[in-house]
């Protein structure tokens, strides 16, 4: 029973940790499908989760985030916890009609979250 309890605790802790979550941005939902020709939407993802003490390596944390988390663990009122933010982003291409009704294809950088970490 103790083993099962510990496994559950670990699993819960893991799901609460800072990680990438799916977020599909549908251009129809935001009313942009009249000027964005392609894609109809894209998987943007978002970062959410806790940055607990001590910060694990896989959380892609910076030296500053480690120090901040350490201070937070001693006195939470002195400094807030490090934030779970995107650490690696990639580009998407968008085919759209601009204000002058010309067709434009543009590559936008930093639109898709590839990795999250504590910063």
């Amino acid at each position: 029973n103790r083993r099962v309890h510990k496994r559950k605790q670990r699993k819960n802790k893991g799901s609460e940790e800072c990680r990438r979550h799916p977020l599909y941005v549908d251009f129809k939902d935001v009313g942009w499908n009249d000027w964005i020709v392609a894609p109809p939407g894209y998987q943007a993802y978002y970062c959410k989760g806790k940055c607990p003490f001590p910060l694990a390596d896989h959380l892609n944390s910076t030296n500053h985030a480690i120090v901040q988390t350490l201070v937070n663990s001693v006195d939470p009122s002195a400094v807030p916890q490090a934030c779970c933010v995107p650490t690696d982003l990639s580009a998407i291409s968008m085919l759209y009609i601009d204000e002058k009704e010309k067709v434009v294809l543009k590559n936008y950088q930093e639109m898709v979250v590839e990795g999250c970490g504590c910063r």
Partner: protein
Amino acid sequence: GVTQHVPLTEDKKTQSKGTLSVSQLRAENKEAVKAFEKSLMTMFGLNSRPRPSTEIHIPQYMLDLYRQHTKEGEDIDINFNLKGKLTSTANTARSFQHQDPPDKGGGEYNTEDGSELLYFNVTNIPESEEITAAEIRLLREDIQNIESESQLSQRNKLFKKHRIDIYEIMQPATKNTVAITRLLDTRTVSFKDISWETFDVHPAVLKWRQSPSLNHGLQVRLSDHRGQPSTKIHTHLRLRRAVNTNEKSWNAKKPLLVTYSDDKKLYRERTRRGTNQQKR
């Protein structure tokens, strides 16, 4: 792969906890919504939200370019790396369809010497963007669809090859003077070839952008294998709308100008980062 649909607005559970939805926010604070939309438009490099009419034709080339650049399973490169084109630093491709020049009505082009006038309005390219390449794309149609077999074989014998010259009009012709032009690109083609032909017009587009008043258009001259103007050749180069062609079909065949540019955003960020590092 499989995409999970998660709408941008918060779900009902979250809304009941007190989070504002976009519609609620719109009703309560129009200013905030305006500011939010403005910041998004700035991010996309637009001055305002485009409100296009429903009749806009999307050129097939732009769709193909999009598909080619977003191949499944491959990472999207921030720049277009197109073979044989100076597009390695370009992250934007813009298309312009041929239109009537501002000072002339439609269908007044002089075709007596076997030439056609093409005009493209390139004034909407943002000043901050650096144009790295520009080309015009002309369609060479299958003339077998147009002419009978006997006519075709006769023409093929006489005019196996013909030349397409693209000139920039430096000064338009007047009653007393002829037009002053400069050659931008040339190509010898065969009647048998059926495809889109591209011609480099980068120098002209750079000039038009700097001084829009100097944009008098491009002149396309067609000549036969002997170098004679092809006044009598029923060329298969689609430069003007045929009588029996409907609007939709003509839009798909219209001459197209494509510019490739760099919005300099990536460069600016790198520079800013570099300067900060130096300061530190």
